[in-house]
Every structure is written in C-alpha cells, then in structure tokens.
C-alpha cells in the first residue's frame, strides 16, 4: 500500500485515504464551446499514459478532500513529489529511479530472440 504525502495536510498518509484522479495539468479550455473536434479530442480523450515519470492528480478523499498533483514513477511506483493543485508542473529532482527493477517478460523474451 502506497504512502502518499498530502500537500495540504502536510502528512504522509496511507493510500486508503486517497483516490486517483487521472492525468494532471490538463486544463479545461476557457473557450471550450468554440474549440475544434480535434482540440476537444486532444483535451478530453487522449492521455499520455507514460512509462516512468508521470504527473497525475490525486484526491485526499477520506481526509481533507483536496485534489492535488503528484509526480510518480510508474515503474518503481514511487512518489517523487506531491504539490498543490494550481501550481505549474514541477521539476522532479534527479533520482534515476526509473530503471527496470524486475525481470520482465519483454526483457527475457527479447534476450531469447
């Protein structure tokens, strides 16, 4: 179970108190009624789903109730930092944590070929 730092409560709390809320830093267009189909698709449907460093939103739903942003490494499942909603995308300190930590099917099968 993950340990998540709520930037509002300023405490590490158990994952049970939080709910994931999708990719971060996708702002709703101010002129949303006027944007093109392509722009709407880009805004609403398309997500990066990156391996490694990912910016995402979480809500401290069973705590203070606030939405906030987090930088998480999807390979190590480590939270690199969390910060308040509305702040710009933060630079993550270099950790090099994104390297492959377990043998995967792709890796071993790739070697086998």
């Amino acid at each position, binding site marked *: 179970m993950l340990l998540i730092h709520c930037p509002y409560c300023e405490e590490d709390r158990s994952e049970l108190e939080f709910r994931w809320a999708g990719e971060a830093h996708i702002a709703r267009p101010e002129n949303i009624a006027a944007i093109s189909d392509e722009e709407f698709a880009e805004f*609403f449907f398309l997500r990066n789903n990156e391996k490694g460093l990912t910016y995402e939103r979480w809500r401290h739903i069973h705590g203070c109730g606030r939405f906030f942003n987090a930088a998480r490494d999807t390979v190590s499942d480590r939270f690199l930092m969390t910060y308040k909603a509305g702040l710009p995308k933060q630079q993550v300190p270099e950790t090099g944590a994104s390297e492959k930590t*377990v043998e995967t099917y792709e890796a071993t099968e790739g070697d086998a070929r």
Partner: protein
Amino acid sequence: MSGPANNLGAFRIKGAGRLTPARTSRFTFDGKSYTAMEGDTVASALLAHGVHLIGRSFKYHRPRGVLSAGPEEPNALLDVSRDAARRQPNVRATVQEVFDGAKISSQNRWPSLAFDVGAVNNLMSPFFAAGFYYKTFMWPKEAWTKIYEPIIRRAAGLGVAPTEEDPDRYANRYAHCDVLIAGAGVAGLTAALSAAATGAEVILVDEQPEVGGALHSDATTTIDGKNGFDWAQGAAAKLKAMPNVRVLTRTTVFGYYNHGFLGLAERVSDHLDRPGRDVPRERLWQVRAGRVIIATGSIERHMVFANNDRPGIMLASAARTFLNHHGVAVGRRVGVYTAHDSAYEAAFDLKRAGVAIAAIVDCREQPGEAVLAEARLLGIDVLTGHSVTNTGGRLRINSMTVARNGNFDIRKIKVDALIVSAGWTPSVHLFSQSRGKLRYDEAQQRFLPDIYAQDCVSVGGCKGTDDLAELIDEAITAGGGRLALVGENRFDWTGGMIGAGEGAGPDTTVKAFVDFQHDVTAKDIRLAVREGMHSIEHIKRFTTNGMASDQGKLSNMHGLAIAAEMLDRPIPKVGLTTFRAPYTPVTYGTLVGHSRGDLFDPTRKTPMHDLEAAAGAEFEDVGNWKRAWYFPRRGEDMVAAVNRECRTVRDVAGVFDASTLGKIEVVGPDAAQFLNLLYTNAWDTLKPGKCRYGIMTREDGFIYDDGVVGRLAEDRFHVTTTTGGAPRVLNHMEDYLQTEFPHLKVWLTSTTEQWAVIAVQGPKAREIIAPLVEGLDISNEAFPHMSVAECTVMGVPARLFRMSFTGELGFEVNVPADYGAAVWQAIWERAERMGACLYGTESMHVLRAEKGYLIVGQDTDGTVTPDDSGYGWAVSKKKTDFVGIRGLKRPDLVRDGRKQLVGLVTNRPSDVLEEGAQIVADPNQPKPMTMLGHVTSAYWSENCGRSIAMALVAGGRSLIGQTLFIPMKDRTIAVEVTDTVFFDKEGGRIHG
C-alpha cells in the same frame, strides 16, 4: 494398533533433541493412533514412529514422504482436522504442530495410501509429459466442457476443500515500527538486539514456534560461549522483556509491498489442544515499517537424480533438524548424497547418535578438507567423484545405486533413508518482492540482493554471507547499535551445484524430479525448451515448474540451470521468474478477517427503516442502502402488492421513503453560477422558493446524473441526486470547484444523511399533510407545483418540496433525520385513515414509468444524451459554457439515427417485455439480425390496464406508430412504438 500410549516412537533417540516427554498428545494418521511430544510437528512425530510414506504425488501418484523440515515442504501435504467444521487440506506436515486429538489424513490416494489406483498414471507417464493437457484435449471442441474438464478437475489438486462454513474467528491488526526484522535466526536476533539497544521500536518476526532459525538443525555452533539454540532463546527472552520490542513467532512475513508496508500472518491457535473461544485462529498484521532488515536465511536444495522422490529421501538439513531438535532418527542405515559440505555435518551428527551411515556419496572430486578429515575420524565411507544414479524401493527407499562419475560400473548400497544436499539457495523472496534487483553470483551459482528499491537491508544467509563472524558483524551494523558477540562454528562449508546430476542428463529418460509438488522432471524442462520455450516465464508455464503452492522454493534454481544448459546460454540470460507474495500460502480467513457475514459490507438504513419493517416491508439492496421494495399485505404476492400500491397512489395517496436520494447543499454568492456550469439547465433564472429538474452531463455530453434542485435563497440551493450517484456527483462537483473554477465562491456539503425524506403522493396528499405543516400556506395557489419552502412540520424545522415523481399532486417532506420516524408515523396515521398506502421502490418505478420519467442508469447507460432521452428541453440554449457544452456538439452526438428513448406497447396487452431484450425491424431476417436497440424498462401497469415499456431505439422518435419486433427464445413479440407518457398525457393531475 500402535503400541501403548507412552510409545513415543521407535526412532526416538534417547538423549537427542530438545523436546521433553513431560507432555504428550495423541493424534491419528489415516485412522491409526500415534503419540507425539510437545514441540513435535506432524512430520517429526510420524518419522519418530518410522512412518515415511505420507502422500501421493500430484500427477503420477507416486509414493512420497517428508522432504524438508520447514515451510518449503513440497511433498508432505496432509488433511488436518480438529472437528467436522475445522478441516484444512494441503497442510504442510513440517509446519503443523501436533495438537491433542488431531485427525490427520493423507491425500490424493484411493482406496488407500499404500495401494493407490491412480498410480497407474506413473505407468502411463510417457503420455503425461509436460504440455500434455495443452496438446491432447484440443479436439473435439465440444468435449472440452462436457468430458475433459470435469475429469481433469476431479483428478487435479491434492486435497479436498472443506464443505462447511469456517466457524473460526480471524483477527486483524495494524502496527507501525521503526525497524521490522524478518527472520529470527542468528542474523535476525543479532540485528534485533542491536536495533533494540538504540531505543528504536522493533518488531521481530519468525515463522517457527520458537526463534533460532537454522540453529534448530545445529548442535555444535556456539554464540556468546553458549550452545547456539540456547543463546537464541535467551536473546528472545531479553528482547521480549524490552518495552520497545515485539517478538512475533509462528508469524510469517508473507508480503513486502510499497513504502515499507508488510503483510504478516500470525498463527495464533492452530497448535493448541483446545483453543479458547476468545482467541482467533489467525491474525493478519499490516505493518508500516520505517526500515526492514531481511534475515530470512537460505533454503537447502535437493539433488536431481533418477527416482529421487522415494519416501525416505530428504534434505540433509531436515534430517539434522529431526535429530537435533526433535530427537528423531530418519533411518537406521542412512546414505548421503551431496554436492556440499553441510550434508557431512548431518552424517556426523547421525553417526554420533548411533545411526549407521552407509556412505557419503559426493559428486565433487574435492570436498572441504575439514569435513573429509572428520569423516575419516568417525569411520564414515566417503565416495568422492561418485553419484547416486538411481534408487530402489516401492513405498520407501531400500537401496541407492552408486557409480563413479563418467563410469558405468554401478553398485547397489542398502539404505533405509537417503539424505541429500545440492547446496543452499538464499531466500531473496522478500527482497525481490520489495522490487530490489538481484545479481547472479557466478562463483556460488546463486542470485543475491544487488540494488535496493526500498529502505531495507539483507543480512546473513539471504545475502549470501556464509561466515558466521561476518554475519554477526553485518547484523549488528544493520541494527544500528553496538554489541559484542562472538560466534563459533565447527566447519566452514564449501560446495554446491544446480541442475541435473550424473545419470539424469539430456541423454536419459529417467524420472529425476525438479519440482516434487507438480511432478516436474528434468526431462520435462528439456522438452519445454525443445518445443520452443526459450524464456523461463514460458518454460515455467509449460511445465508448471515452481507453480505449486511451495512456489518453487526448492525447484526454481534447478529448473533454471537445466533450461540454461539446454539453451546453451548463461543463467542470468535465461532470467528468473518473479517472486510474488505470499511467501507461503495464507488462508482466506486471515485475509478476510472480520469482513464476513453481517460485517462483509456496511448496511445503510434510513431513519424510517424499522417502521417500514414493522409494516411488513420487503427490502431491496440499492448500493449499500436497504430500501423498502413493496409492502405486501396478508395473502399478497409481490405482483398483487405492487398493483394495489400503484392503484391506491393514483386513487387516494401513497407514502414513500425517499431518504436515500443524494442531497448536496450548494451555498455561496456564486452558487447559481456554479450550478450553471455543472448542469445543462439555467439556474440564475430560478427564483428562490422554486425548484427545477436538472440534468448533469459529463464533458463528453452524456447524461451523468439528474435530480430536482430547489433554490432556498439567492445563495443557497438544495440539490438532490440519484441514490447511487450521490458520492460521485459530489466528487465531480468538488473536482470542478477546486481545479477548474476555483475563483467561484461556493461551498459544497453532503447532506444525504442529515435529512429524512417522506414523499406523500396522490390526490389526497395535501389533505394528509396540511394539518401537520405550520407557517406555510400549501394551497395550490400559494404553493404550486415545483415550489420549495422552509417551514415547520409538527414543530420540527422542515424543508417542504412540492414535487412529484409519480405525476400526482405530491410533496416531499424533509425533516432532520432524527425526527424522521416521528414525522413518518404522524403522516402515516393520517394517511392510513384516509385509505392511502405505503409504497416501495417497485411501485415508484412503475408509477414513474407510467409518466415516462427517466431513471439514470436504467434508461440511460453512459452513452445517452439529454436529447436522446427526450429531455433536450433541459439543455439551455443561452448559456455560453457548461460541462458538456462542447461534447454535445460532437458529430456523432448530433447525427441522425441515434438511439432515442421511446415507449413500447405490446400488441397483446398482457405480454410484459423483458428488460434488456433486443429489438429488430424484421424478425424473419437471417442471423445475425440488425438490432435497433433494447428494452430499458418494462412493467405491468395496473393503472393503464396493460403492459408498458420504454426502450432505446435507433431513430426511435421517427418510428412512433410503427410495429417492431422482439425475438425471444420461444416466440417473437410484436410491439408498437409510442411516446413515453402512458398515463395522464395532458399532465393535469400534478397540478391538483
């Protein structure tokens, strides 16, 4: 019959072991009675009585005995019961402690363990090679579900699952600590002493009944000048006395998850003769540790050679444990087959205890000098550069066949037990679960911890530290304290091998078992490689090597080595399968804890629940809510009750509990602006004292929720949501308020449980409530349809809504939840006298369908727009922004031919359609037919005197008046498409 009650077994060695005969217990194995000593496992007790045949193997039904003395046991799996309800299959005999009265049975045999019909599989084994099931039961396809699967299912698995409900209680605890130490052998205890001295909060965990780890098997190691095992018990006593230390024995760290989170399973009472009712059977610990010290030691491997699975063949360390801890000799004339010095020490101990050692067969040319010298001193034959190439015996080993390596001259040596060792595999399971990265130690042929992913450190055997002094040093360092501790052992060990031994190579077809529990042989692994499996993940799944409940603790390294040899590639290139939790099997009871029966899930009840139950209500589950479904009177079934309720509401009136509807209080100077953005409707035009039906869409334009919103003041709205949608609607609102529209001054509060809501619907509704309402004129002129006001009802502050989900004159009385029952009772007393009824959710559904009112989630499915459902009027044309405004303009949402909500009436009025049934234009078209849509709601309407239905149909509104068809299993039903209002089309009644 076995001997007298005090017969502790013919293989007990006087003076050996640490058990005392002060307390004994009786148990039965396959109906025969035996005596055990306190501290015996089922395995040690049976071996004490010379019982080696304990089970039959999974696939070939080969006779099997005890292989190990610990949790890695793959063979000796038994069915253990305390009473009829307390029976557990697949219990490891080497882990389960004997309790008095235990009834123990062997598994996977019929009719008896010694004569097992299934053993014919062993003769058929050429047909049962790896992948046999995958290849054989392919054809004909139909035979799979009818013939193959039932037979395979019956034959598969070892034990039989219990049929009765588990009567035991399982507990659950959370804990935090600075340091958690997994394993209480020399390394774990030393680390605990060191860490505890710093004042840190320490939890020390060990899976055995008492601490000591590998010292259980040992007799010669000294620590701090004392016998090693005695030192360990003393250290544990000292730790237990410290306020900052918790020592958990009989507890397995089964999982190491993110951020120092660990799962522990504590076996609290399985070893007790008569567990009290106040103790749970097992306890789940969920621990968040600041730091973890992994001291899980290592596990001895078996040798892979022909017929290496007969009862009487076991790990050398196991034989040593049975002797030095339980005082049991595993045979009278024991052979040794080894690639590692450690097995010599087992031979020395046995020899000194008076057991004959037939020979030590060592496949190495050069074993350690020290052990060789000691063997000579004790007069034990050592055959270096020799291997055991076969064994004899049916239900127990009676001989080993020995040959010089590379030579065909064989000789048979009589033995009644054979102890084996191929070396030691570090237990890197927890390290690996923590997502640490392993490296391959080429020299010692083992995987060791390399890159740590969490705040943890491995010490001792699981880190590959073989030297005792070095091990103690690193454990002290890991603990972070200071400690002076000297340990001495007699012999330093060398050696080890992985893969198949002599006589079991690729040029042979012998049965040399790699994985005992799944009957996987070296040959099977080679076959998998020949059939094209090149990744260890594929080889594992094709052969099922390491996939049994022991998770390959003994077999994985051997399997990997055999595969690597066949592939002619270095071991790290073939890969290592992932170590997953749990480390050893964990019962469902432990994981479930108290969450069963009534405590499985919370139940939400409205304030009027008990009154409804007393009135005879049947309840239905709506989310976690219990909602009154219908109120049958004497002799009524559901249909009769619902018909009566529906009729009565329209003829007189009905009282309905609407408390479960979600309620959100939206307050603030920008509240109207906020609702304008969240709902499709316009809210700034709604005057205080009025309410309006609102639709909420998602950004994609599809209906998300609906409900009536009342404006109590300029800056205060009482929003209602669907019963199931309340939490997600609040989350949705909070999301927009906090992140997209944070400039709006609005505060949101969930008030669902603050208000009890009593709906009174029907022509007499006003007459029923009028005398109870104070401070408000509720006449039609003063308080018309869609009004809301604050007033008092029976002196209780209330919010009164004039609204209707039935199409009748209706009110919804909101009072604080604590007053719900009293107000309900007062209203019902008046209503009952006037001939009204109580009605439940089923009648509510029918009544609203008669009026064509939508239920979000029933008549919509997340792909329906307001216009699709006929509610296009609820979308404001004037607003420049709301959530969904752009989505609604998407090409697919504005095209012709979308599915639209329409009414359906069957040609035969008595036919009630099935919800979910598909609709076609031409029932005679060839299959697959073109389906136009489906029925979303269908009921018998007593008020209309016929069945009614709603459906989503492509281009539905343009088909009104036409006939469509609903093909059912036994017939085709013709329906006419109509609008969605079936009763009171003019809508006059609501304004009554």
